[in-house]
């Protein structure tokens, strides 16, 4: 049970809807509601915006592919014992 109420996308301002569209494109999946983490990060765009840009830069293909990096992200999440 989350410690906060995760708002539905409809409860966010217009600017956040663009972030949710970007999130949908990033995951290439048509979510009924944006992922909870996307909604958490959209709560304060002054934090979520640069955090999201840093994530996209880190995940962009470079010497390692996006797929390689998804696997790195998965093992890091495992090492942090995070099931999200």
């Amino acid at each position, binding site marked *: *049970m*989350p*410690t*906060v109420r*995760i708002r539905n996308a409809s409860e966010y301002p217009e600017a956040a809807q663009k972030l949710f569209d970007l999130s949908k494109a990033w*995951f290439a*999946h048509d*979510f009924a*509601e944006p*992922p*909870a*983490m996307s909604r*958490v990060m959209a709560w304060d765009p002054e934090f979520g915006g640069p*955090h999201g840009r*840093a*994530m996209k*830069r*880190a*995940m962009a293909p*470079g*010497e*390692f592919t996006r*797929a*390689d*990096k*998804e*696997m*790195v*992200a*998965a*093992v*890091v*999440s*495992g*090492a*942090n014992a*995070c*099931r*999200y």
Partner: protein
Amino acid sequence: MKEDALWYEAAYVVGITNALNVVADGLPPDVLPPLAESAADAQTRAVIDEIRAFYGEVPAPFLTIARDPRYLSDLWAAVRHGFDEHRLTRRLKEALAFAVSLTSRSAFGTRLHLTQLRRLGVGEGGVMEVVGVAQMFSSYTKIADTLQLASDMGDIAPVDPAPAPGGRVARPSTARPRRKQR
């Protein structure tokens, strides 16, 4: 990355990396002195030579566990198989091991796998890519845990119907449905 075989291989790398890190970081030489190579028997020396050829050095935990030659031999076989190229490249495996070592704050593992990444030709840009992913997902995971978010992306990954290696495809009635973690 749709096939489970890739993820089994990655999990083996994570597990055996952690196994080496635990001994290296938890049993420094002043706590349990490593075996002097000159004191090793011929069979143990052959294993140590193989380790040196693989890494370009002999990582400390191998000399620590060389006090039990048969255990060293089996552990090394698992490490070697785990890091050899099968479905995943050695380069990606070293990146996974580096990220896991960094995340679990293993000074030994971070140094070893950073050295291996560089030996395999990964440049500073590539190293920073792995550091960036490890750092960003260390942030996301803690935000998720602090807010106790439930996973809502587990269902978007496809399920791999392939059997275990050498096995048979399960009949639909006996296959247990499961969800795959992202």
